[in-house]
C-alpha cells in the first residue's frame, strides 16, 4: 500500500517577508513521504527543520509552493481535519504538558475533538499502555523524568489514533536512558500499528535507524535517501555540521590506519563481522 501521506512541492517560507535581508528559513523544498515510512530529518542548528515541522501541521503556511497532507492541500479549511489525524511531540518536555496529571494531559486532544466520555477513558488507557505509563496516570508532570514526560506526550498524540507522528527533537533534552525509552517506544509502535513517523534529530545513531533520511542545509534540501546512501557522503556531511554514526566513523578511521575494509558499516555488529573475516582471511 504505497500511498502518499505527506508531500512538499517547491515549498519556500520566510519568517519576515518585509525584511529584504532575511533569508528564507525553508527554500524550494520538495519531497514526498509514503504511508508507513520512518523518516529522519537532520541538519545543523538553524537549517530549517522546525520550520518544516510547523509547515507540516499548518502552524505556518508556505509563501510559495504547496504542502499536502493525507491528500489534502494544507489550508485554513482543511487544517483542523488534518491536525486531528496527526500527532506532534516537541523538544522541551516541560512546555507541552497541558493537563495537571498524566491522564488529564493524554485526554486533552480527545476533549478538544469532542470524543464522548466513555470512549475517552478507554482511549486514554490504551494510549498510556502503549507507552507503558499506565502506572503513572495520576502523577503530576513535574515529578516525572524527562523520558517519562516525553512518553506521556507521545501517548497524548496517540490517543487521537493519528496516521502520522512528528517528533521535533523529542529526545534531545533527554539522558541516554530517556532517549532509549523514547526510541524503543517509537519502534514498538511502528511494529504494532504501522504508524508513519517523521523524526527530527541531531542524533545520527537515531537517524541511522530510520528507513530514509532527509538532510537539510541552510534551508535547502541537501540530499535524501537510505541511511547507507546518505552517510556515504561522509566528509560533505561533517562539513555541514553533522556527523556520521559511530560504526562509520570507526570504519573510516580503521581504513586510514591501514585496515583495508571493503564496506561502509552502519552498525557495530557488521563492522566486527568484517573485521573478523578480514582477520581470519589474512
Amino acid at each position: 500500500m504505497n500511498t502518499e501521506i505527506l508531500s512538499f512541492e517547491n515549498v519556500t517560507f520566510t519568517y519576515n517577508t518585509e525584511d529584504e535581508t532575511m533569508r528564507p528559513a525553508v527554500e524550494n523544498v520538495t519531497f514526498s513521504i509514503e504511508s508507513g515510512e520512518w523518516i529522519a530529518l537532520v541538519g545543523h542548528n538553524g537549517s530549517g527543520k522546525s520550520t518544516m515541522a510547523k509547515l507540516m501541521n499548518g502552524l505556518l503556511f508556505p509563501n510559495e509552493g504547496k504542502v499536502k497532507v493525507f491528500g489534502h492541500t494544507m489550508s485554513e479549511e482543511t487544517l483542523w481535519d488534518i491536525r486531528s489525524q496527526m500527532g506532534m511531540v516537541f523538544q522541551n518536555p516541560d512546555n507541552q504538558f497541558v493537563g495537571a496529571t498524566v491522564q488529564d494531559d493524554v485526554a486533552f486532544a480527545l476533549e478538544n475533538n469532542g470524543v464522548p466520555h466513555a470512549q475517552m477513558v478507554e482511549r486514554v488507557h490504551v494510549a498510556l499502555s502503549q507507552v507503558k505509563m499506565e502506572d503513572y496516570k495520576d502523577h503530576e508532570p513535574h515529578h516525572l523524568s524527562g523520558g517519562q514526560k516525553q512518553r506521556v506526550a507521545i501517548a497524548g498524540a496517540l490517543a487521537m489514533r493519528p496516521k502520522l507522528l512528528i517528533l521535533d527533537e523529542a529526545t534531545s533534552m533527554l539522558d541516554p536512558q530517556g532517549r532509549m525509552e523514547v526510541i524503543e517506544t517509537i519502534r514498538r509502535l511502528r511494529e504494532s500499528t504501522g504508524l508513519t513517523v517523521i523524526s527530527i534529530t541531531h542524533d545520527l545513531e537515531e537517524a541511522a535507524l530510520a528507513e530514509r533520511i532527509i538532510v537539510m542545509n541552510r534551508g535547502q534540501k541537501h540530499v535524501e535517501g537510505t541511511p547507507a546512501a546518505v552517510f556515504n557522503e561522509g566528509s560533505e556531511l561533517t562539513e555541514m555540521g553533522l556527523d556520521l554514526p559511530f560504526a562509520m566513523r570507526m570504519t573510516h578511521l580503521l581504513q586510514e590506519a591501514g585496515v583495508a575494509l571493503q564496506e561502509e558499516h552502519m552498525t557495530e555488529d557488521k563492522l566486527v563481522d568484517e573485521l573478523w573475516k578480514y582477520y581470519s582471511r589474512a
Partner: protein
Amino acid sequence: MEILLKGVGYSYAEDTPFEKRALTDVNLHIPSGSYTAIIGHTGSGKSTVLQHLNALLKPTEGVVMIGDRKIEAGVKAKDLRNVRRQVGIVFQFPEQQLFDETVLKDIMFGPLNFGVPEKEAERRARELVVQLGLPDGVLEKSPFDLSGGQMRRVAIAGVLAMEPEVLVLDEPTAGLDPRGRREIMDLFHELHITKNLTTVLVTHSMEDAARYADRVAIMHKGHCMVTGEPKAIFSNEEQLQDYSLQPPRSVRLQRDFEERTGLKLGEISLTEEVLAKNIALAMAEGSRSL
C-alpha cells in the same frame, strides 16, 4: 585550586512536606589542575554536587573546602564573592541567563560584579568573542537576536570572562548539533590546558568523559560511589551496569572485537582514534604471528 567534599549531605526544602534528599555522605576530592568528569544516571545528584562547588548550595551535613575556604553545615557563610569569582559555573542551557542589551555588556556583567575595571572587562570580552568563534560585530548586537548556538557561546564567554581558576560545566553541549558539540568541548579542553584550569564536567556522554577527563566520579542515588582514572572506571563494565551506565562506544566495540577475534588489544581504548590504531596494530601483529 583544590576542592574537597567531606561527608556532604543535602536535602532540598528541608523541614517541609516536600523535603527531598539529594545527597548523602558524599566524599569527593577534586585535585588542583585535574579534569574531573562526574557521571551518573538522571536524578543521581550530579547537578546538586556541582552547586556545592561554589557555595550556591550550602551542605545540610558535612564540610566543603573550596581552596582554603571552609563551608560547613550549620555555620553561616559570609561573603562568598571570592569563592564565586574563583569557581565559574556554566549551567545547563546557559543561554537562559542572558539579559543585557548587548552581547558586550552581558559578557562584562560578571567581571564588573567582581570589581574588574571596565577597560579590562571589555578587553576580555573582545578576546573571548574571537576565541569562541563568534562572528565580527556580534558584540553590539542584542543577545536575543542570535541563533541558539551563538547564544550558548555568548553565555559561556560570560563565565569565562570572570577568569575563574575552576571551571564547572553542567552538560554544556545539550541541544547543539554534532559540530557545535565537538567545537565547544575541544575549546574547554584547550582552555583547561593553556590556562591551567581545574575543570569539572557533568555529562551523560561517556564518550566525552573518556576523551577529555583524567578523573571520573560516579554518582548513584545521591552517593558518590567511586572515583578513579577513566581507564579503570570504564574497563569495569559490571560496576558501570550497577549504576545504570554503559562504557563508551569505543570500549564496547573493543570488547566485541576481542571476543570475536580472540585478539587482545591490551589496555582499553578510550577514544575511537586510539581504538582504530590499536586494532590495526593487533591485526598486523596477529597475522604476522600466524
